[in-house]
């Protein structure tokens, strides 16, 4: 297994590899479920499964280049599934940056503990939302609120789901 040393050189952090096709299948499943579940369970619309997958593989692979490219692909696919009112690039830019940040943080911190995963996912969700609002306001001239209680609830819900989803995705790792 590959190993990467953290920036301080004090402890080593594992770089996880995954079974063949695991990343592609997990990504496609996340997009498919994201586009299907809210029809049957309206409340699941608050979840952003493609974002959770971006965060998970970013934190696990710990390679910023891979993380940002995976984030870009997932984001652009999500844009294209959203209909023409969402321009290609809105989710793309946000998830590119989140993929990069997750990989960079994953290379410096041990992110295997459920509490760390919960906190990081909530923070990344907030950052992702902030990037979308920023893109909408600056590039698209579309006013959007920065903060409301619904977003706080959504961040916590996503973080909670992430804890269990990440445990499931851990099973896709190569031993």
């Amino acid at each position, binding site marked *: 297994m590959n190993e990467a040393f953290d920036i301080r050189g004090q402890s080593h952090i594992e770089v996880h590899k995954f079974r063949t096709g695991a990343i592609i299948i997990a990504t496609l499943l996340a997009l498919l479920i994201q586009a299907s579940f809210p029809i049957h369970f309206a409340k699941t619309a608050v979840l952003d499964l493609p974002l959770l997958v971006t965060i998970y593989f970013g934190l696990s692979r710990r390679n*910023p280049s891979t993380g940002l490219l995976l984030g870009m692909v997932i984001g652009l696919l999500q844009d294209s*599934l959203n209909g023409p009112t969402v321009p290609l690039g809105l989710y*793309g830019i946000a998830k590119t940056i989140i993929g990069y940040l997750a990989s960079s943080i994953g290379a410096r911190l041990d992110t295997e503990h459920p509490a760390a995963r919960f906190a990081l996912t909530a923070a990344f969700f907030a950052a992702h939302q902030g990037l979308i609002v920023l*893109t909408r306001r600056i590039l698209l001239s579309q006013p959007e609120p920065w903060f409301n209680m619904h977003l706080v609830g959504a961040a916590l819900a996503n973080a909670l789901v992430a804890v269990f989803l990440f445990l499931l995705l851990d099973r896709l790792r190569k031993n």
Partner: protein
Amino acid sequence: MVAIPSRHKSLVLLLGVIVLQVLMLAVQIKRDSEGRLIRVWTVGAVSPFERAGSYGFGWIRDIWRHYFALQNTTKESEQIRRENDALKLQIAQLQGKAAEADRLAALLNFRQSQANVPMIGARVIGTGAGTASLTIQLDRGERDGIRKNMGVITPDGVVGKVVEAYPNASQVLLLTDKESGVGAMLADSRVQGPVGGQGEPLLVMKYVPNDDTVNLGDRVITSGMDRIFPRDLPVGTVAEIKSGNQFKQIRVKPAANLERLEEVLVLLSLRPLEMKNEGNTGEPPPAPGAPNPPRAAKR
């Protein structure tokens, strides 16, 4: 050539990828293009799975709802319980089919009552993959005569309009989306004002002067002014009224249950339509610049 330190390579890649996407956004805004090719590929690849998932999930859900709801009532012996369970499974399947038949019958009745309006039934197979827009995906597309900007309704009321039609699927912008809107009026007072979404469950009716009388529970119907929906279709009921600077702030509860749509009707015309209850059988004039209506397909 300047060498980039390896630890900065990912940062350079990040900047490059973001600049590329910002340029892509700028091109879409400048040329009003929507990256249709990429969308056609993505939707074409995903919609067959959504379709299969929608049918499979509906079947499982019907069994879950009816079978497990009934299971708690069984208190008899194990043998009888097993027999009961087997029968309940059968009942659950039949109830699921009956419920679907009821919904389809309602759609059919509505269609038959509006025989002069070309429309086609479609099943909802997906939603937008995110919270940035409120869209649904239908299992019918260009091959069934669906085109961009066609109206989508249920017998309960207005749902939204088609924003993209692909060969075998189409995307509908729900009335609750921020960019959505419909020409509307109050059914009793005939006061007109556009109704639009806010990204929330309730809609907003705009430009109703403070002087006009509006009551809670007043019915809001389509005015036909948007040239997409015929007049007198239910839009919703007034749920909140506040006085504003010049105009009232009116919130409207949608008539159609937009959070639980399973089957919808697409109005197969890009010309203004008249519903039967108008009593107007005359052919309406075509909208300026509107293309010829596609051939009506039947479900």
